[in-house]
């Protein structure tokens, strides 16, 4: 089901957690809410769920205004950061809970409930563990029980709060891929919150980058990475360098040195130049950014070189193929090949 959030504002006391946030989520989409802690991403998720109510604004489920509906009426599936499994119930009872507590007229027969719970446990690859208690499961297994439990009620939308936050790196990666598979198979509209950009970029159809209670950018992982639309997004996603520059007649200058980048049509004035460490080319000589090598590090297939570029004492980091860098090089000159200017 499609979910629309319109001009949502949420205050806790006097502190605004969300400020005029609007978001359209298409049916069947897998969306990531990405941001540093305190950016309001979890609040937005809980507002969609109905666990919080907005100070202002509306949440639509399809064409229906869901804002005044209780969390029970919204029929959502929510997976909590620490799973919130019912510790006194078996895995099977946890998964069937949402169906067994329904009033008699909407409750499937016991056999049907058991069949559906069994099917879901099959889907999350936990068949055989029906009789276990949550305390007897590993973190990854609990996570999957929580997901099966949320899906059992056939929710309009599946909401996951930091679904992999409490797991170790290896399990995280596996579960990430597996969640994508489940999503492709079941087609639930899914929103998940994360502070891990790799997770968001790898998993989501679209990423919503949030900061300080506002949405900074919405886009596909490619758009977010390749064309960040604000200094925050540029700095938050991936690695980036920032240099203070001046624009004169369409040429970028750092101090009095040309940077080797032209921006025809840009008005004169001060700006910040952003570029990624790998979006550069090495040059010899003038008309480029040059600096002395401070330190180099080999990270997997690339060499990271930290340069001190003189005048302002600014440091930049660039990434080179290892064969392009020999240890006797003390100075390096380069220019950015992909970059973006933000006016100051």
């Amino acid at each position: 089901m499609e979910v629309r959030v319109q001009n949502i504002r949420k205050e806790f006391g006097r502190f605004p957690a969300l400020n005029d946030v609007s978001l359209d989520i298409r049916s069947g989409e897998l969306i990531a809410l990405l941001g540093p802690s305190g950016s309001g991403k979890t609040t937005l998720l809980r507002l969609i769920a109905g666990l919080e109510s907005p100070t202002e604004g509306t949440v639509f489920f399809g064409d229906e205004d869901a804002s005044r509906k209780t969390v029970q009426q919204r029929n959502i599936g929510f997976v909590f950061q620490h799973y919130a499994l019912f510790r006194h119930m078996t895995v099977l009872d946890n998964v069937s809970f949402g169906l067994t507590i329904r009033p008699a007229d909407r409750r499937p027969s016991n056999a049907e409930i058991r069949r559906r719970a069994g099917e879901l446990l099959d889907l999350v690859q936990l068949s055989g563990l029906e009789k276990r208690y949550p305390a007897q499961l590993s973190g990854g297994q609990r996570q999957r029980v929580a997901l099966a439990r949320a899906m059992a009620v056939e929710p309009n939308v599946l909401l996951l709060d930091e679904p992999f936050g409490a797991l170790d790196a290896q399990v995280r990666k596996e579960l990430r891929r597996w969640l994508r598979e489940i999503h492709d198979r079941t087609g639930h509209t899914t929103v998940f919150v994360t502070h891990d950009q790799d997770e968001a970029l790898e998993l989501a159809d679209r990423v919503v980058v949030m900061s300080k209670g506002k949405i900074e950018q919405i886009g596909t992982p490619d758009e977010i990475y390749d064309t960040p639309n604000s200094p925050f997004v540029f700095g938050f996603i991936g690695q980036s360098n920032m240099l203070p520059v001046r624009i004169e007649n369409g040429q970028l200058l750092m101090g009095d040195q040309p940077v080797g980048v032209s921006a025809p049509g840009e008005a004169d004035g001060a700006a910040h130049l952003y570029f990624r460490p790998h979006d550069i080319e090495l040059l010899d000589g003038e008309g480029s950014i040059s600096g002395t090598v401070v330190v180099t590090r080999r990270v997997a297939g690339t060499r990271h070189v930290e340069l001190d570029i003189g005048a302002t004492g600014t440091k930049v980091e660039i990434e080179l193929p290892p064969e392009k860098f020999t240890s006797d090089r003390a100075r390096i000159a380069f220019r950015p090949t992909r970059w973006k200017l933000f006016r100051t």
Partner: protein
Amino acid sequence: MAHEAVSNTGSGNTELVRVATSESRLARYGLIGLALGFVALFLVLPLAAVFTEAMRNGPGEFLTVLSDPETFAAIRLTLLVAGIAVPLNLVFGIAAAWAIAKFEFRGKAFLTTLIDLPFSVSPVISGLVFVLLFGSHSLAGPFLQSHGIQILFAVPGIVLATVFVTFPFVARELIPLMQEQGTSDEEAALSLGASGWQTFWYVTLPNIKWGLLYGVLLCNARAMGEFGAVSVVSGHIRGLTNTMPLQVEILYNEYNFVAAFAVATLLALLALVTLVLKSLLEMKYSEQIAASRRH
């Protein structure tokens, strides 16, 4: 655990490595001995004295004394009072703990302090409060009396005083437990479509059941054993408003030692049963707490 890596029993110089937190043998046995001696002197000895004193003239006499109508009435009254006070405090305790642990509201700290009040106030004062409220010189007392309702020197007064004194037990036990568990289990249940009652019944209550049982046990022990507050409001009417602790005092003052100690034995037994149950629960409970932490 404090284990010595190398024993120092041989020649004094072999003590190479010792775990930092371990003490010398002498200090350890000294401390253990002191603790055991203290327990024996102040706890075991008096308790043993109660039992021997009660059995002085044999078990036959013991039973005869207990079947005395006034003593029997006292036992019945104690059971009745506990039977009313404990369920009331069970409900109040859960409600108070729920409110404090799961909601944010103004005056929460004040309410928490207020719940502790019966613990900090002398039981005699707790009794006097009700004399002031319902006595013949109060506002409510004469009014209620003119409508045929007797509070003081009757069962209602005893129940009220007992409820007051035992109020904190259940709430105190549940508040930290519920605070630690947080609200996400309840939120999970609600998000799955459960109503408020279903959430309480199927999720909250099972999560707190061991703590609750423990609180109820303590509450019950105190309700049956309360002397001070009940003594003030009861009026000591034989066979009518005497609870077991009051009956013990009366019998003792009449030099009827066997009877006094026989009733005391019952109270002591209650304490022992409570302790045993409490220990059993704590064993079970600690596993559950540990499980809930792992969770």
